[in-house]
């Protein structure tokens, strides 16, 4: 059984179908990239899967459990981690506190009024930070981090509670070339080690074809191609979408 199964997902905004009957699966331990030109529906699709938007119709099944339309809070507790296109961290906290909060909220212990946060979940938080080479920055305020480190911290937050599925919207946007490869290698290692399914969108084709096990191509809200990176790369429909009129003209 697949870890994530998406069936016939639809979402329109004012009559315009942003996601128009999308279906696919992600297996445990698999890295699946979603690509497509701007406006293809990638972000809408992600926001539906992450619970930020409710779909008009369709089904999302996580490990056999229907999770369609659940709110982000509930999805997190069911094991869905999320990073955003523009890294979103808790700006007024330290690096360690960010991860501590992620762990506490997952266990519904973020309502506690009887303990200080300082010592809660500290060891688990530090283990996550060590894994992503952020331990040296544990006591730094987020505000002082370089953007690449903020991106890594966001990943640390997202994987802190050992999710089963990780949704990453443009994980390497805004990062330097070297940082990109390192981050994605880290994600790939995590996916293999802990059978974590990863679904990510990306504009950088080196990242896509270097790290994805499978690639899904969206165009005008529909899946137009899906399969192994090489097969997708050579698919004429995909080439047409990406190269557009120029390719058509060249062929004519």
């Amino acid at each position, binding site marked *: 059984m697949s870890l994530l199964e998406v069936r016939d997902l639809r979402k329109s905004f004012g009559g315009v179908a942003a996601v128009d009957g999308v279906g696919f699966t992600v297996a445990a331990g698999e890295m699946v990239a979603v690509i497509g030109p701007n406006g293809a529906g990638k972000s809408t699709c992600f926001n539906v899967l992450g619970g930020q938007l409710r779909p008009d119709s369709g089904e999302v099944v996580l490990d056999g459990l229907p999770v369609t339309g659940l709110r982000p809070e509930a999805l997190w507790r069911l094991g869905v981690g999320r990073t955003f296109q523009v890294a979103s961290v808790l700006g*007024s906290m330290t690096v360690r506190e960010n991860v501590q909060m992620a762990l506490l909220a997952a266990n519904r212990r973020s309502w506690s009024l009887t303990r200080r946060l300082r010592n809660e979940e500290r060891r688990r938080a530090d283990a996550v930070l060590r894994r992503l080479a952020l331990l040296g920055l544990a006591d730094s305020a987020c505000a002082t981090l370089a953007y690449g480190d903020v991106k890594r911290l966001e990943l640390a937050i997202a994987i802190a509670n050992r999710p089963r599925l990780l949704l990453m919207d443009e994980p390497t946007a805004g990062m330097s070339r070297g940082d990109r490869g390192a981050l994605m290698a880290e994600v790939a290692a995590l996916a293999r080690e802990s059978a974590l399914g990863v679904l990510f969108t990306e504009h950088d084709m080196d990242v896509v074809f270097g790290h994805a096990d499978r690639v899904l191509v969206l165009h005008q809200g529909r899946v137009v191609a899906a399969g192994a990176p090489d097969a997708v790369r050579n698919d004429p429909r995909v080439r047409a979408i990406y190269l557009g009129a120029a390719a058509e003209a060249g062929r004519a």
Partner: protein
Amino acid sequence: MSFILAQFLTGLASASSLFLVASGLSVIFGVTRIVNFAHGSLSMLGTYLAVTLVPLFGVGSVLGFWGGVLAAALCVGVFGGLLEVAILRRLYGSFELFPLLATFGVVLVVQDATLALWGPTDILGPLAPGLDGTSEVFGLAIPQYDLVLIALGPLVLGFMLLLLRRTRWGVLVRAATEDREMLGALGVNQKLLFTSVFVVGAFLAGLGGAVQIPREPANLLMDLNIIAEAFVVVVVGGLGSLTGAYLAAVLIGEIQAFGIVLFPEITLVIVFLVMAVVLAVRPWGLLGRPEPVADSTLPAGAVVLRPMGKVGRLAVAAAVATLAALAWLAGPYYQQVASEILVFALFAASLQFVTGVGGIITFGHAAYFGLGAYGAALMVRHAGLPMEFALLAAPAAGGIGALLFGWFSVRLGGAYLAMLTLAFAQILWSAASQWYAVTGGDNGILGVWPSPWASDPATFFLVVLVVCVAGLAGLRWTAHTPFGYALRAGRDSPRRSAAIGIDVGTRRWAGFALGGVFAGLAGGLYAFLKGSVFPGVLAIPTSVDGLVMVLLGGIQSLTGPWIGAAVFVGLKTLLASATDYWRIILGTVIILAVTGFPQGIAGTLADWTRREGR
């Protein structure tokens, strides 16, 4: 039957004036995203200018009356334009608290300026010539002027809708309201547009005030009464919808017209209940569209919370010890001043918890302080319970009030929140000053004395000290717990918080209620400190005092409110004894503080938003 029709028409007439004011507020907010707290003051200025100008233009003549009314409205329009150019222009896009505070500074300045220019007594305006009689409508004698007002509302609504649909200016206003990026793309002179919108909005407010002169004498309470009503109208109608504002104005006008006859003492409670029902069914108002809860700009200097260092702890211990020593060393007067500072420090700290830690910008925090004070006073005077019980009832009253009002306001962000919190506080204030049977109205509740064992001034001072220090420590502790962190997480980034399992809406509600508990405790102490409670404890100036204390101490600082309260209470004690016009000084200080260093604060904010990328 005839009674119903007569009241109905009176309600329609009031609705028109209310609509004029509210429509200006709505248009200004739509374009500039500024909630203009001074809008009620603009309307009050319209009334005062009209009672002055109409006699100058000629009392007896039709031209003189309407010329005077129009001239008054135009003057207010120009004044509104000046406000925009001089003050508000500097504040677009800054931390949302600043424009609110700046316009509140204007409220204070206008209040004292009006007092200085026109004096404290109410001024009756002239009647409209030719319209001072009654006309027969369905066999009823209806004041002719009311009929004119009834027509005026729909006329202005139609005119505004035409203006918005058919003119280039209207297109720009709609573009700015609905899609700000498009406005930039149109290559518009935004400065001119924003100023003109303020002129039009202020003109409408002035007109709404000016046409009231035959019906209501000009008085100094108009500004806050009108602004609270206008907020209710705008929120019930739906922010940005003029038609919605008219419908809501009719609704509120009718409730008041019938309520004043049927339930004179609880008219405002009915207004509140109707508003509650509308908002429970349609959170965005009758005709409003859902707006995504805006990601609020992070307050200035949103810094990492660190445990207090050794030096800090020693300083606190020394301060508490020094204060405790006052019980033996100082006389009753200084103990009274010190008690007042402590009580306000607790109040300010509870507000800092809500606003600074939770990022919930409230303009009605005094409501919970006042609920605590009245709760305690009622326990002692009506239920005959001793101080110990009353001091338990006070935080409960504050907490329950915050829980109730918070449900409506805290779920919604930004502008709705600011307007609703203020409206709630004003409604409570009105209820407290009208409901003589329970609250004693303006006469207040007297004889709220401590239990015999604590009645000695020095002992009572120690009670205040212990309770306040415990309260302050409790708030500080809460900020350091996972609960406090999760509240702050919701402020930092609602999106990230939700993605790690924090339900931001519920959390904000809980944080708001907890702030209400501590504010209520402070209010309870205040009642015993003064031995009496008056409606002023609930009034909007008390809320703003709290905000100023928080800002003085630094909005992010947990210790700040202590210092802010000490400085503020000290200064106010000095000022109030030195001059009657302390409001104008306070108002000017607020305006200068907010506009004077926009770079310092806005610069920090810009850094933050850049990092957050939003």
